[in-house]
């Protein structure tokens, strides 16, 4: 469904993403992990059109989408969340999602958008009270809204930049279950980004590890967690997370 080949991004002289290649099959959940600054969000930004790749190709359903304008990528069927939620505070929660339903699906009718929005809010477990304001949401609520906006665009591929900072253990587990449920109920393909291994390893089919913009490992979670390079990267940066991942997988 998605085939990324030799994707690179330079910021000035600095290489944030260095010739990364991977594929995602239909219906799969691919985990994308790596320490802070390893280039995960940059990869998402290039797939979704927010950034133009410096090199490489991105084929979605057989067609090249690298460098396409972000709204066109959305209309092709790729939805994304932002790592730091970016809600529209001047619109109600429901209107945020209606907007995505309307413009994300090629501007059919407001009614269809409303229906899509309510469905998306149900999926993430937010109420569709038309008066509920964004300002009433906490960190977990904002992440859910971010997800609902992406889902309302009816994506075939969802790029979830979750990096579950700001959430407690319980909320992280809930978020993981939610992604699982979303896949089960909608059948969409998901790439899930995270910087610690933690809960992600329970949910994904396959995981890919980045470090300094390079892919250092790829495979089933249990396999990757035992990879010496991955352990080295994680011991170097996030011991606790590596330990947690080890115990959880074991």
């Amino acid at each position, binding site marked *: 469904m998605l085939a990324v080949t030799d994707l690179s991004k330079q910021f000035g002289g600095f290489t944030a993403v260095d010739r990364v290649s991977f594929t995602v099959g239909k219906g799969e959940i691919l985990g994308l992990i790596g320490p802070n600054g390893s280039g995960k969000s940059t990869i998402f930004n290039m797939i979704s059109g927010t950034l133009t790749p410096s090199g490489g190709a991105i084929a979605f359903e057989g067609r090249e989408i690298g460098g396409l304008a972000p*709204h066109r990528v959305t209309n092709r069927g790729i939805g994304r969340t932002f790592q730091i939620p970016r809600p529209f505070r001047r619109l109600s929660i429901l209107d945020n999602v209606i907007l995505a339903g309307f413009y994300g699906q090629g501007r059919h009718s407001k009614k269809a958008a409303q229906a899509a929005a309510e469905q998306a809010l149900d999926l993430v477990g937010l109420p569709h009270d038309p008066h509920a304001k964004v300002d009433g949401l906490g960190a977990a609520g904002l992440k859910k809204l971010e997800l609902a906006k992406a889902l309302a665009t009816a994506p075939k591929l969802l790029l979830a930049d979750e990096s579950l900072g700001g959430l407690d253990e319980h909320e992280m587990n809930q978020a993981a279950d939610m992604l699982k449920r979303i896949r089960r109920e909608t059948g969409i393909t998901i790439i899930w980004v995270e910087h610690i291994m933690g809960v992600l390893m329970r949910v994904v089919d396959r995981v890919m590890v980045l470090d300094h913009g390079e892919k250092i490992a790829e495979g089933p979670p249990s396999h990757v967690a035992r990879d010496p390079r991955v352990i080295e990267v994680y011991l170097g940066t996030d011991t606790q997370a590596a330990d947690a991942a080890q115990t959880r997988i074991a």
Partner: protein
Amino acid sequence: MKRWLPWTIAGALLVALPFVYNAPYPLHIMVVILIWSFAYTSWSIMGRFGLVSLGHGGFMGIGAYVTALLWNHAGMSPWLSIPMALLASATIAILVAYPCFRFRITGHYFALVTLALSGIVLQVITATRDHTGGSLGYTPERHQGGSSIYALQFIDKETWYLIALGVWAAGIVIWYRVERSMMRYALEAISEDEDAAAAAGVHVTWEKLKVTVLSAMMTALAGALYCQYQMFISPDTVSGISISLQMVFAVVVGGIYVSLGPTIGAIITILLAEVLRISFGTAAVGYDNLVYGVLLVLFIIFLPKGILGGLMEARARPQAATAAQPKASRA
């Protein structure tokens, strides 16, 4: 049905007014207020989404001068020349705004680029003074028969009052159409976060361009009407930077986020200008701009939603407080 009743009554009263009370001077002031209200409403259609244009004086000037020049030089009826003026204004709007939107020139930078447009239109009018009269102003030729629908010239103020009222009302209707459209969702989103709006599928440049062209064309219509009504235009009265600033001022004072805010702004600014003119005569020329400037700063600091917006908020607050109470007690 009930919701329409107050509007219908207000509308009927406004239409009936000149037939009941038609003292020329108040009627003249009302026509002027209606035309400027329409111009300010046109500005606010995009201004309310953070697209602060200081180029609208330019659009107004284009509307006025294109109409007058085509009448005097080509004998073209305003019924034809006004659409052409609107088209010219739309074209200029696209030429200026498209590169801005494409290259993400927003906020203060957008205001500065559009400010240049006001300046350029003013310069062009002065530079071509052989045709436009330059800073001395310009007068469309009187039609021989006095009042004429073909020439869109009317001697009596009642007719002008009704035309201005109709156009003003159309402006308010357009305001509400935008308010209820999906375009408003998109523009609200864009005004907060262009990347996030694009990720939701919004074609950011296109949505901004649409509202800008709409606003520019409406403003040009206001300029053309002003020209036909006053039968005299000059760069100071229908174009240039000071007119652009006056639009911003009036809308901010009246209320940028409410439908009748620009109208309230027009009433205040025009009455203020009249009072200054009557009490100080020509000695006060330019004072109004000074007063505007000071008031603008005060309003932006102390009453950013404007007079009408502030009043409506104050009225809504006790209701919101009571509505929030049960929720608070539950929590």
